[in-house]
C-alpha cells in the first residue's frame, strides 16, 4: 500500500510538469520505436532468408577470369560431374538486364523447357519459346500482366517480344521481385552466349557432409573456378545487418549519443528546486529510502510507458505497415525494391535487451542524482 501511495505521489509530481513529461515520453518512445523497428526488420529478414535459402544449390561453381566472373564451358560441367561424390552438375543460365526505359535492373533467369508448376506463380512458368514469367516488381514497373507483351532489348540491340505467361505472387517478392524467367534457349539467344557456355554450375552431392571436400577437389581440378557452398550463402545472409556494418553502426551510434546526452543532462546534478523539494519531504518525515523510491517510480513511469509504446509502434510499423518509414531509407538507389510483407519472426532476447537498455539507465539517471540530496540533512537541503 505504501508503495502505491508513493507511486501516486510520483505521478502527481510528474503531472506538475505535464507537457514536458509527455513530450519526453513521446520522444523517448519514438527513439525506441526506431531502434526496435530496425531490430525487428533485420531479424525477420535474416530469419526468412536463412529459412528460404536452405534450398539453394548445395554448391555453385563459378569461373573467375582476370578477376571477373566469366562464363563456364559445358565441358567443365561434365568434368565436375565426373568427380566422385558428385550426384549431378547442372548448368545455370542467368544474368542482369538494365532496362533503360525504367532505369531498373532485372535478373534474367533461364529455366528448363519443361518446368514443374510452382504454387508461387500465378499462371505458369514459360513452356514455349517467346514466353516469360515475371516478378511483381517487373510487372508493376512495366505495367504488364498475364497475356501482355514484355519487350526487352537483346545483345544485338534488337527488341525481343516475350509474352507474359505468369506473374510471381506477392508473398514471394523477397525472392522474385526483379526476376524475368525465360526458357533457357531464349536466354542464351537473348544474351548472345557463345555455344557450349553456361553462367555457372549448380552441383548436387550425394553426402552433404562431403561438400567442402568436393569443393576442394573442384578447386584443385580447375584452379580458375570458385566454388560457393550453401553454407557460405547462408552465412552471407546471417551477416546482413551485422552490427558492425556501417548502417547499423550509424543508427545505433546516433541513438546512443542521444541517450547519453539525455542521461548526462539528468545526471549532472538535480536543480535547486528539486533539492529544495527533497529537503521539504525529509523535513516532514520522509526517509531517504522513501525519497529514492519516489525517484524510482518517476523514472519507471516515464521509461516503462515509453518502452511499451515504442515496442508496440515498432511491431505495428514493421509487420502491419510493411516498414513504410524504414524501407525508403534501406532501399537506397534501387529502382525495384520489394514491399516488406515479412513473416513476424521475433527474437525475444532482442526485446529483453531493448527493455533492459532503455529502462535501467533512465531509472538510474533519475535516482542516482537525487541520492546526495536524499541523504543530506533537511536543513542543508532546504537552504539549497
Amino acid at each position, binding site marked *: 500500500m505504501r508503495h*502505491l501511495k508513493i*507511486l*501516486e505521489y510520483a*505521478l*502527481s509530481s510528474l503531472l506538475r510538469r505535464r507537457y514536458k513529461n509527455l513530450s519526453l515520453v513521446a520522444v523517448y518512445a519514438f527513439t525506441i520505436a526506431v531502434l526496435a523497428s530496425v531490430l525487428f526488420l533485420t531479424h525477420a529478414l535474416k530469419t526468412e*532468408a536463412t529459412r*528460404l*535459402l*536452405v*534450398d*539453394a*544449390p548445395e554448391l555453385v561453381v563459378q569461373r*573467375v577470369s582476370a578477376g571477373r*566472373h566469366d562464363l563456364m564451358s559445358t565441358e567443365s560441367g561434365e568434368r565436375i560431374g565426373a568427380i566422385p561424390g558428385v550426384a549431378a552438375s547442372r548448368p*545455370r543460365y542467368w544474368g*542482369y538486364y538494365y532496362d533503360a526505359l525504367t532505369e*531498373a535492373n*532485372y*535478373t534474367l533467369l533461364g*529455366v528448363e523447357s519443361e*518446368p514443374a508448376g*510452382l504454387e*508461387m506463380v500465378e499462371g505458369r512458368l514459360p513452356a514455349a519459346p517467346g514466353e516469360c514469367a515475371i516478378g511483381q*516488381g517487373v510487372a508493376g514497373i512495366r505495367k504488364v500482366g498475364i497475356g501482355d507483351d514484355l519487350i526487352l532489348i537483346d545483345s544485338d540491340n534488337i527488341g525481343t517480344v516475350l509474352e507474359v505467361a505468369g506473374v510471381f505472387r506477392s508473398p*514471394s517478392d*523477397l*525472392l*522474385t*521481385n*526483379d*526476376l524475368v524467367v525465360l526458357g533457357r534457349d531464349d536466354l542464351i539467344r537473348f544474351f548472345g552466349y557463345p555455344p557450349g557456355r553456361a553462367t555457372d554450375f549448380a552441383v548436387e552431392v550425394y553426402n552433404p557432409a562431403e561438400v*567442402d571436400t568436393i569443393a*576442394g577437389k573442384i578447386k584443385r581440378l580447375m584452379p580458375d573456378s570458385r*566454388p*560457393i557452398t550453401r553454407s*557460405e*550463402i547462408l*552465412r*552471407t545472409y546471417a551477416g546482413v545487418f551485422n552490427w*558492425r*556494418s*556501417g*548502417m547499423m553502426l550509424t543508427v545505433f551510434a546516433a541513438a546512443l549519443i542521444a541517450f547519453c546526452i539525455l542521461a548526462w543532462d539528468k545526471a549532472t546534478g538535480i536543480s535547486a528546486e528539486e533539492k529544495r523539494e527533497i529537503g521539504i519531504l525529509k523535513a516532514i518525515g520522509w526517509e531517504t529510502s522513501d525519497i529514492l523510491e519516489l525517484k524510482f517510480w518517476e523514472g519507471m513511469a516515464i521509461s*516503462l*510507458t515509453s518502452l*511499451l*509504446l515504442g*515496442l*508496440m509502434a515498432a*511491431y*505495428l510499423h514493421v*509487420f502491419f505497415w510493411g516498414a513504410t518509414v524504414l524501407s525508403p531509407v534501406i532501399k*537506397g*538507389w*534501387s529502382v525495384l*525494391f*520489394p514491399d516488406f510483407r515479412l*513473416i*513476424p519472426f*521475433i527474437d525475444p532476447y532482442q526485446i529483453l535487451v531493448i527493455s533492459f537498455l532503455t529502462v535501467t539507465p533512465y531509472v538510474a539517471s533519475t535516482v542516482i542524482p537525487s541520492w546526495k540530496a536524499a541523504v543530506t540533512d533537511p536543513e542543508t537541503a532546504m537552504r539549497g
Partner: protein
Amino acid sequence: MNKHRFFIGLTLLQTIFLGLLLMHGEARVATLSGQQLPALRATVRSLQLTDLSLWTEARYTRHPSQADRFTPFQDFPSALEHFPAGSIMAPVRSDSSQP
C-alpha cells in the same frame, strides 16, 4: 488520488496489447511456415535461387553470396558506393580453404 490506478491500468493494457501482438505474430509464423514457406522453398529449389531480391543497384548488391570480396571495387575506378546496401551487407565471408 486515483492516478496510480490509472497508471497501473494503462500499463497493464499496453502490456496485454503488446502480448497480443506477439502472440498474433507467433500464430502467423506457425500458419505461414505451414502454408507459405514450403511454396517459397519450392521456388528456391526449382529456380535454383541463391539470393534475395532486395537491392538491385549492382551485381554485388543483388547477388551478394555470389560476389567475391573485391567485386564491389572492380566496376571501375570511380565507381560510386551503393548506399545503404553497401553499408548493410557485411563483406562476403568464405571458408578458409577459399582464396
